[in-house]
């Protein structure tokens, strides 16, 4: 036995975290620089606050309105959460149905792609008309926006199984269902997680758009309300909360990926391009 063995480097969670923080340093420094530059420009040229508030003014608004912002964030989070989970379920089911019932899938797939070309933002007023100002129209809007990347990535995963895997399973008399359950579905999980990461960002967008179209709570509602009052610092403060919320949701999905599919290929956007 002289075959070389490639041991994966033993990386502890703590070391990963430390390394992660260190790799974030350049981004943090750049952000800090931009904020300082922004503040200076506003002060030097006396830009009116309602046009573009200085970072300090935004921060003040954030502190002053923390309570309504928090309540709004909670409402939006709920929409994102329900919408995302439902998108995931619908997306997975669509992919499974297309693969399992091939003929029906061939009929369904073009329709889904066609539906993707409908500008979903334009659907928001219709959903409001049908379901009122509650949670339901927002969730529905999120689902029509976010199920697509889930379905497409899951489908790609289910169909990218090497033919030799299928031959191997057939050589021991495994049924189609068994091949699906034991090989295709687990094989598709890394693809599914990639789709879910896109879906979670789409879900946040969907929630805000839904709130724009008609709502009495949520961060989108706060932004609209603040704009009618020309309270630009509050708009920016709400935008910051939306961004942080989106980031937090994204990393929850990434954490789930890390825990559920540790064999997924790691993606490094900067180095993989080189």
């Amino acid at each position, binding site marked *: 036995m002289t075959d070389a063995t*490639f041991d994966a480097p033993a990386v502890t969670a703590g070391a990963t975290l430390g390394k992660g923080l260190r790799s974030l340093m350049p981004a943090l420094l750049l952000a800090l620089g931009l904020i300082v530059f922004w503040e200076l420009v506003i002060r030097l040229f006396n830009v009116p606050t309602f046009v573009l508030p200085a970072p300090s003014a935004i921060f003040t608004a954030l502190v002053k309105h923390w309570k309504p912002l928090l309540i709004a964030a909670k409402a939006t989070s709920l929409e994102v959460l329900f919408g995302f989970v439902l998108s995931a379920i619908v997306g997975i089911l669509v992919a499974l149905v297309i693969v399992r019932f091939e003929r029906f899938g061939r009929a369904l797939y073009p329709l889904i792609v066609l539906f993707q070309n409908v500008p979903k933002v334009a659907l928001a007023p219709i959903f409001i008309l049908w379901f009122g100002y509650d949670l339901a129209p927002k969730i529905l809007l999120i689902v029509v926006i976010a199920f697509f990347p889930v379905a497409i990535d899951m489908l790609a995963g289910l169909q990218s199984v090497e033919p*030799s895997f299928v*031959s*191997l399973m*057939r050589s*021991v008399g495994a049924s189609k269902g068994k091949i699906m359950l*034991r090989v295709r579905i687990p*094989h598709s999980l890394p693809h599914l997680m990639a789709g879910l990461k896109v879906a979670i960002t789409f879900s946040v967008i969907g929630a805000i758009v839904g709130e724009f179209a008609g709502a009495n709570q949520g961060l989108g509602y706060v932004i609209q309300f603040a704009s009618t009052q020309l309270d630009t610092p509050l708009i920016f403060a709400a935008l910051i909360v939306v961004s942080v919320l989106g980031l937090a949701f994204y990393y929850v999905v990434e954490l789930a990926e890390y825990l559920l599919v540790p*064999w997924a290929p790691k993606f490094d956007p900067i180095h993989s391009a080189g």
Partner: protein
Amino acid sequence: MNVRVMTAAARSAMSVPDAASARAHIAVRGLSVDFTVEGRRQRVLNDIDIAVPKGSFVSLIGPSGCGKSTLLKVMAGLVSPTEGTVTVAGVSPHEAVKARLIGLVFQEATLLPWKNALENAAFLLMTADETVKRADAFERAAAMLKLVDLDGAEKKRPNQLSGGMRQRVAIARALALDPEVLLMDEPFGALDAITREEMSECLLDIWERTHKTIVLVTHSIDEAVFLSREVHVMGTGPARIIETLPITLPHPRTDESYSAPGFAAAEGRLRSLLIESHKKGRR
């Protein structure tokens, strides 16, 4: 495990094939296979006759596209014959699959990336037999990993194993089924020269210990001569067997077999047959 082997033997006793193929463990008679590619029927195998004796090691060698992989797939029940018959242990490949008489190994190890070596080696057995206990399947898989010199690597995932080691797991996975027949499609084709030779020796060792009937599809003349008792040389246009060459090198074969007098002669004969069939294929 033994019960299954007995039913297979009983089945083969019940069917009454002719005398020659009764002795053959794998009997291919007048086999032709047509594929329909983009609406056009194409003959990929034409009138093939092969008889593989029980416990023998047989290689199929030939230029790319000569249908040797298809022939193997017919034996494995993955492709249906258009004409002619194929029997494995006296029954159709389809029934042989049901009776778990067939183990398959491909050029790619095709291991499941989310399972470690042991789980991969036990995977097909657990798929084939729902009643087998997890512990029993793992025990059998561990024994097979030991047979392919992989004890100690049970907990490693495929991405932590080298190409040769992955292929060893694939062989262990096939052996864990305790098949009567091992069908291998260029199993060492993706490995470097030294690893190939190591794997050849490992395979020969397994064959000598288990006496499985092995059919190997290969591109390598060396490999075919070193491992086989019989080499079927295939030609193209349409694919058929152009010659069957017995390899008379004594067993057990070792490193020194490569320099034995019979080796070079067999190698030379195979090479000229292959060159000839290549030329014909181009015409």
